[in-house]
């Protein structure tokens, strides 16, 4: 697999680590046990296009949000995490 890092360009799979589904959003402070349980444990486990968190740990150390097809491994889009780099947050 090759991933086009928005900062580094196209790189080899080995430079990246996949964390998993990017759809669940960490509940805000004060959330119930049920809500946090859902966030931590339940997955859609999509067969098809899925949004994921990947880490370019072997490169620029940016966290990326990647949309990838789990049936074909085709990568549809790559975008930086909200806090990757300073410019993102400056907007």
């Amino acid at each position: 697999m090759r991933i086009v890092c928005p900062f580094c360009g196209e790189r080899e799979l080995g430079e990246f680590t996949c964390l998993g589904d990017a759809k669940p959003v960490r509940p805000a402070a004060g959330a119930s046990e049920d809500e946090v349980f859902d966030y931590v444990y339940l997955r859609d486990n999509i067969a098809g296009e899925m949004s994921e968190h990947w880490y370019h740990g072997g490169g620029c150390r940016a966290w990326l949000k990647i949309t990838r097809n789990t049936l074909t491994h085709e990568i549809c889009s790559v975008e930086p995490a909200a806090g990757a780099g300073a410019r993102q947050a400056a907007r």
Partner: protein
Amino acid sequence: MISSQPHRLASGGLIDRSAPLNFRFDGKTFAGFEGDTLASALIANGVKLVGRSFKYHRPRGILTSGSEEPNALVELRTGARREPNTKATTAELYDGLEAASQNRWPSLRHDLMAVNQLFAPIFVAGFYYKTFMWPAKFWEAVYEPAIRRAAGLGRAAGIADPDHYDKAWAHCDVLIAGSGPAGLAAALAAGRSGARVILCEEDFALGGRLLADGGTIDGMPAAEWISRTLAELATLPDVRIMTRATLFGVYDGGTYGAIERVNDHLPSPPEHQVRQRLWRIVAKRSIVAAGAIERPIVFAGNDTPGVMMASAMRTYVARYAATPAKRIALFTNNEDGWRTVETALGAGLQIAAVVDARPDVSAAHRALAAKAGFPVLNGSVSGVDGGKDGVRKISVALAGGARAEVEADGLAVSGGWNPAVGLTSYHRGRPKWQDDISAFVPDGAPPGMVAAGAANGAFGLGACLRQGFAAGAAAAQSAGRDGNRGTPSVADDEAFSLAPLWHVAGKGKAFVDYQHDVTAADIELAQREGFESVEHLKRYTTLGMATDQGKTSNVAGLAIMAAVSGKSIPGTGTTIYRPPYVPVAIGAFAGHHRDENFHATRLTPSHHWAAEQGAVFVDTGLWKRAQWYPRAGEKDWLESVTREVKAVRGGVGFCDVSTLGKIDVHGPDAGAFLDRVYINTFSNLAVGKARYGLMLREDGMVYDDGTTSRLAEDHYFLTTTTAKAGPVMQHLEFCRQVLFPELDVQLTSVSDQWAQFSIAGPSARELLKQIVDESEDLSNEGFPFMGAREVSLRGGIKARLFRISFSGEMAFEISVPARYGDALVRNLMLAGKQFGVTPYGTEALGVMRIEKGHVAGPELNGTTTAADLSLGKMMSTKKDFIGRVMAGREALVAPDRQVVVGIKPTDRARRLRSGAHIIPKGETPGPDNDQGYVTSVCFSPTLDQWIGLALVERGRERIGEIVHAHDPLRGENYDVELCNPVFYDPDGGRQRG
């Protein structure tokens, strides 16, 4: 000259007659030429019997001239370099080559295992599923060892491979597999366009089938066209041609695997060179011009040595000037088979007959037959008379029902051609059936890939050139290369007509999969028993699972299945195609990463100093750490470690702790950030102070711990455990970039920037005073417990000093820029001489932390909560932090959880071992009273007995209770007392003092 090579033509071929080579096969010496394969050289020497089959040990000869060979497998080379199952058809001849036949005993000609043929009526497909069940114990003792010995093919060396391998990356616009007319045309078109091109050819010579079949291209002989083409390609700077390189797989994102046999054509690799190199090729586009594979026809006796694929027969004659037979019969169902007749006649060989399954043989062929004086029989070969010395006679079932016999010493067979659809199908694609050639052709391919030429079902030379050129041009264009690509080469298209014929019914074993001895009858049996799905067929009969991956057998097998189950061939379908396209040495996939180079090694700044001291090192992750420093006269590790501990507790010692993960946390929101990742609070930590912190995973379990110091208002220095340094950095970056992007905080690993040493013991301060600048106040008031600040060292170096203790002693950790780490230890030794300063290793470090009751790796095992480790009170209730909510789940706060306690044996002389389980005293151990286990143990020099930590159900409520430590693995069972885990200085006076 060893022998006269009686089956070598007097002239012709692409061998170098000026470079004679000697080689040995089964102990006998033969001669050949450079440019030979082992197979062609054996043929030139008249050797027909080269191997034995897998199950029946039937005698086998050479069937093909390429990597699809199922029969001619040998053990190549000897000793540690012995390579089992090497295809004689692709092994390049070199001087001194040694090869041996395999899977026979005691010899190839007299193989006693051929007795299996007597049991052939029983040894049908899947027979073993129906027997060998009684008595049950006999499987491992009797049946299986016998089966295992009989099965298998060649013998692996059994000792370490002495050769080296490496792996490399290559990048291109257009990757081409195959150097036949389609491949070369594609390379020309792409290369002229300005594309970066890589062409991989598995053979050592370029040209593909042109090397044997010749032809006329652009009005010149094929050989001349090849050399002109190669000359032009050589002028293009970004065209790279790799011979002896097989493209074996296609992976996601346009990544391809190729194996280059760099030095397999030599007896052994030259010094500093590898045997083979694994290539990872990244290509924008790829063109599969890998050709097609001629397929056999299944008939009785079709495995007799001397029966050979028609294309292979003419390859041996034309390319190698070696004659597999003098009087050749051809059995074909298609036009292409006749080329062998032409080649053989051209070489002065005799044609015994042509058996053509098609009713309508062309007038030109009939004229040829009449001229050369051989009969053309309309029908099929139904039997072969012969044996291990080859073919003597063939039986022919004529179309009209009559029978005929033909005397011949070789039978060339052509059942048509199967495009090499492997590469195009490796992403689980299924090829489609093409009626006019009765073969599967690619139906789509992985992204960026196309097939061209014979691999795409286009068998004519002209078509190959056209398709190859067009594919090369299109690939270059889509990669953005638009140079002038000139005009394509032209050639005529040969006529191709074929009458499908898969299986000739008849008496005797008719082989589909030669190597695995799968017969037509086996396929019929499989169908009868319900194994109709092609995948079931494959698994039940082992069809296509041999080292040739079914290249010659799969299509015939499923055609026969289609026939017996009354379905069409496409309706029957194919099995999934799986990489690699040819078997690849495991050593090549490993490359450089073996032995000491399996993984990288990290060395601490004091490593070489410690090595000078004779330290024993231990692997901790990738690190080498000093485990202890033995001294002359010490009888074992325990004595050394005990000395080190006593030296620290009684004076002062130091230990390299640079392996801890170290992270600079910068920014105005650094404190707020740390509050969210630690269970305790850091935003209120004063500048110049350190604090112990604990992190949870989001599921509420303890993740990591360490000391974090505040060096400035907006700068914290965080440490992690050695093991978790990398994962914690990733986790913190996730928190920073994904979870809390609103915080202004920056993270940098400074693990390698600082050489960090723990200096511990009652004399630690005195020792440090020798090192730091006189102006630095190290008194308890000036530098209290948990203090952290920059200090100046004598000689002008700046250091960071932390008053933290893992040992329970008065202790500091000092950090200097890493290049000064070596100097620091030497200076500490110098300055500490008067205090008897003692370097200590990880063992003594571990002993002191257990004495002090500090939890570490064995307790932070990913299934313990903060409360389990008696750190529950650190969990702030005033803020949100990672893991807070899930840590509250009922089973994680249950009162009967296993929690950390200390243990000591009731018999003070008793040694403890980690991994023993805790059982209530007086009870018989069982799953219901298994209440915990021992996590960490040591001999405590301070207490003069073994002590340990354990995770024990309700342990904290049971301090003082005597329980059993149960260790059946090591045959030990003894009493221990549950106690406070802090064995040493429980009120902490020493570390504060």
